[in-house]
């Protein structure tokens, strides 16, 4: 279970900390050591949510979220986090192609926190140029901004949980965001709040190959930057900020031409240099900055400070902010090239917090949420499955509703896919928020219905969910941060209303797992998430293999529809070997920009393996 204990100093302990004189008035004087960022015992971060309920703000803050969307597969996750902002917020999203723009718009369709603006901008300057150049004028119109981007960190596997950590720290819950704005309200001099560095990143808090670029840019803003100046910055380039705190940078009127072309650089670009200057820019604008942490996320909790009331918060803010510009006489190593190795034990704490979020553990289920369970056709064991489904509904959280229905009979013959669509339509017409399609006789765990409904809620009703068939003989790769899978299939698939409304359900020209894959890919292309629900357990006997001419024909249809030439050739060859003809008529292809969402296997035969 999740530990909510934390090892940081309490506010009572905080009051007793001796303040070292000498630098930045009454602020402590960090002793900078070679080979590390600030010593943890002196580098404080504010734990969010706060340990008290902040008073209501006199007026809702004027917020713009500026999001650069390069990796579109991460948008469902980011949208789910953005739903935690308890205030109106206008959303400005940049991406780098018209095709991606459509996907972004689909993903944020129905955004009801404020306005949505999606712009196609040049693919250079990583996330920094689109935000500071492409959306420069947005910074003039809003008092508060949240800088986000679709962060992948493939260059260091130890940082695999970084994005989740950043999002959890900035947007982990409405209480986290309320805490951010309590700080802004209590301390008008605080200009920027950024997540504390994740443990595995600490060795990277270096100028690296970015110093010369940073020094030149700093000079243009009037910021002296000695070569051995102390360094700290919002690692990951995501933060909450007052627009006024970025004014020196915005006033440079940078253009996209100032940024190098994108060549997959991991360091040494103007964007990386700017990332390292954010705190100094904030100080140059006359503001302070501070770092925040979310409970339980960091392995090393030293310096993470829990706050229990407004007065301790004021004490923390007055004593625990550091000004880099006041520490320029300090020295530290400049050139280091640390090697980061994955440390699973350290990642666990952060992972567990992310899992809770993804599974909806801490999320109250709104009253009246309705799950409809669709049973498969009658077969031996059908009654036991029905009984287990009713048992699962009886364990739904208070206020949630549930129904069990049979797969509808059709007036004319129709495929299972058609009948599944009929079942989905009937379920949603009856008021369901989530329809669970059970595909085979078996048994449903009593906690499965509740687990699915909670996880669906945690995903904002925008994720296609797959239950687990125990034992998992052919498990798919599951992203261990948020349970993402590439497609949802097997004996239990839960379809939320939003997915059905956007996709219209399964492609009725396809059958079985081919239809399941196709729906998943279409849902992904339309901005929905595909998730594995590890608490939704089902027992079902392994199905029969689907290998054979019908499967090859299905595979061929899928390949044609999704424009995969290699898979098309493979399935054609398999059909030719059997003397079969390609299917007629051939399906219409999906838009070209959707093709990236289809994960075709190298070996077409694996499509047809059926170990549940």
């Amino acid at each position: 279970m999740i530990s909510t204990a934390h090892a940081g100093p309490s506010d009572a302990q905080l009051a007793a900390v001796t303040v070292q004189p000498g630098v930045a008035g009454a602020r402590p004087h960090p002793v900078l050591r070679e080979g590390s960022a600030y010593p943890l015992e002196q580098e404080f971060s504010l734990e969010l949510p706060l340990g008290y309920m902040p008073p209501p703000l006199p007026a809702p803050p004027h917020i713009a979220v500026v999001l650069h969307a390069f990796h579109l597969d991460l948008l469902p996750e980011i949208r789910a986090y953005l739903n935690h902002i308890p205030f109106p917020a206008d959303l400005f999203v940049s991406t780098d192609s018209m095709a991606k723009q459509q996907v972004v718009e689909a993903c944020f369709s129905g955004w009801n926190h404020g306005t949505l603006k999606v712009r196609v901008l040049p693919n250079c300057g990583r996330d920094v140029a689109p935000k500071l150049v492409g959306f420069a004028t947005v910074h003039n119109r809003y008092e508060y901004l949240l800088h986000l981007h679709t962060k992948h960190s493939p260059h260091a596997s130890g940082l695999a949980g970084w994005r989740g950590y950043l999002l959890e720290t900035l947007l982990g819950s409405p209480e986290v965001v309320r805490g951010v704005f309590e700080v802004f309200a209590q301390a008008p001099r605080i200009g920027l709040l950024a997540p504390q560095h994740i443990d595995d990143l600490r060795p990277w808090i270096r100028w690296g190959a970015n110093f010369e670029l940073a020094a030149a840019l700093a000079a243009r803003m009037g910021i002296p930057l000695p070569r051995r100046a102390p360094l700290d910055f919002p690692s990951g380039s995501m933060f909450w900020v007052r627009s006024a705190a970025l004014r020196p940078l915005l006033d440079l009127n940078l253009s996209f031409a100032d940024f190098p072309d994108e060549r997959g650089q991991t360091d040494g670009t103007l964007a990386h240099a700017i990332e390292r200057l954010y705190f100094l820019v904030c100080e140059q604008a006359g503001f302070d900055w501070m770092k925040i942490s979310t409970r339980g996320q960091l392995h090393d909790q030293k310096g993470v400070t829990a706050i229990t009331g407004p007065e301790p918060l004021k004490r923390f803010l007055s004593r625990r902010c550091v000004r880099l510009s006041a520490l320029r006489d300090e020295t530290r190593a400049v050139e280091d090239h640390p090697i980061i190795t994955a440390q699973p034990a350290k990642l666990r704490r952060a992972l567990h917090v992310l899992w809770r979020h993804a599974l909806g553990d801490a999320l109250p289920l709104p009253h009246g949420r309705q799950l409809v369970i669709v049973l498969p056709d009658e077969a031996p064991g059908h009654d036991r499955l029905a009984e287990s489904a009713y048992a699962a509904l009886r364990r739904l959280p208070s206020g949630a509703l549930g129904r069990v229905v049979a797969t509808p009979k059709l007036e004319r013959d129709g495929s299972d896919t058609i009948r599944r669509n009929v079942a989905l339509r009937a379920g949603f017409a009856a008021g369901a928020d989530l329809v669970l399609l059970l595909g085979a006789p078996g048994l449903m765990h009593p906690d499965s219905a509740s687990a699915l409904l909670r996880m669906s809620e945690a995903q904002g009703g925008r994720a296609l969910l797959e239950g687990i068939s125990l034992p998992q003989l052919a498990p798919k790769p599951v992203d261990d941060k948020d349970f993402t899978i590439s497609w949802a299939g097997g004996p239990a698939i839960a379809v939320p209303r939003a997915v059905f409304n956007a996709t219209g359900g399964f492609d009725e020209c396809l059958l079985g797992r081919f239809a399941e894959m196709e729906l998943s890919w279409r849902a992904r292309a339309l901005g929905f998430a595909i998730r594995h629900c590890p608490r939704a357990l089902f027992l079902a006997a392994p199905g029969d293999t689907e290998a054979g001419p019908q499967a090859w024909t299905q595979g061929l249809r899928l390949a044609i529809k999704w424009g995969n030439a290699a898979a098309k050739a493979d399935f054609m060859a398999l059909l030719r070997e059997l003397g079969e003809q390609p299917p007629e008529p051939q399906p219409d292809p999906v838009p070209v920009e959707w093709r990236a969402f289809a994960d075709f296997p190298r070996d077409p035969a694996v499509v047809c393996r059926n170990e549940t």
Partner: protein
Amino acid sequence: MELAGLDVVIRLHDISELPRLDHCLFSLLGQSIPVTSDADHCEPLWLHLMLHRFSFAEAQVVRSATQALRPLDKTASLTMHNWELPEPFDLRVPLLNWGLEVTKCRYFTCIGVSDLLLPGAYAKLLARLRLTGAAMAVGRVITQRVRWWGDVVLPLVEIPPRSAFVPSRPEGADALPVFLLDRARLPTHDLVFRVGHPDGEVAEFMQRLSSQYEIDTRYMTDLLGVHQVL
């Protein structure tokens, strides 16, 4: 008096294994065994949970945790047995032998909390015992590496280099097979688990019986279960 159906003994040594127990029991509740003469009815499954010196409070937690599965146990019955004596320290073998003592069915097996059976596994083994007259029937179990955290378990999957689409085949080293024995075909003096075998007491038990009595191995080529390891 001999009871109809089959007995399954499950040892629980540590309260922290509760989530695994939940999965294990759930897979056992899927082991419906239709009565040969009446397909609408199933043979009873008698589940015996042997607790390793649990406190009263711990035992209550176990009881409460297993309550959720009660609605599913139309043909299964779960009984908890708690070893409260201070000796011996190591209860791995005593719990199994106690399980042999308290069970009354002709057909007997034991299973670990890290084991998950495919639906119908025991029905297949029972059918083989009845068909062949063997003293014991065994079926293939493979090892699966997983990550457990609380009640979340994720099998570790080798991600293919080019695509996250490909489901992996059920691979893994063979684990100790699942077994079902017919007590009517075994003398009482051999129905005992013993300490000291390097592969453990269940391996010793199966090896000893298989060297002396007829064993049906028809399902050693068919997968009947998974043994999860961290």
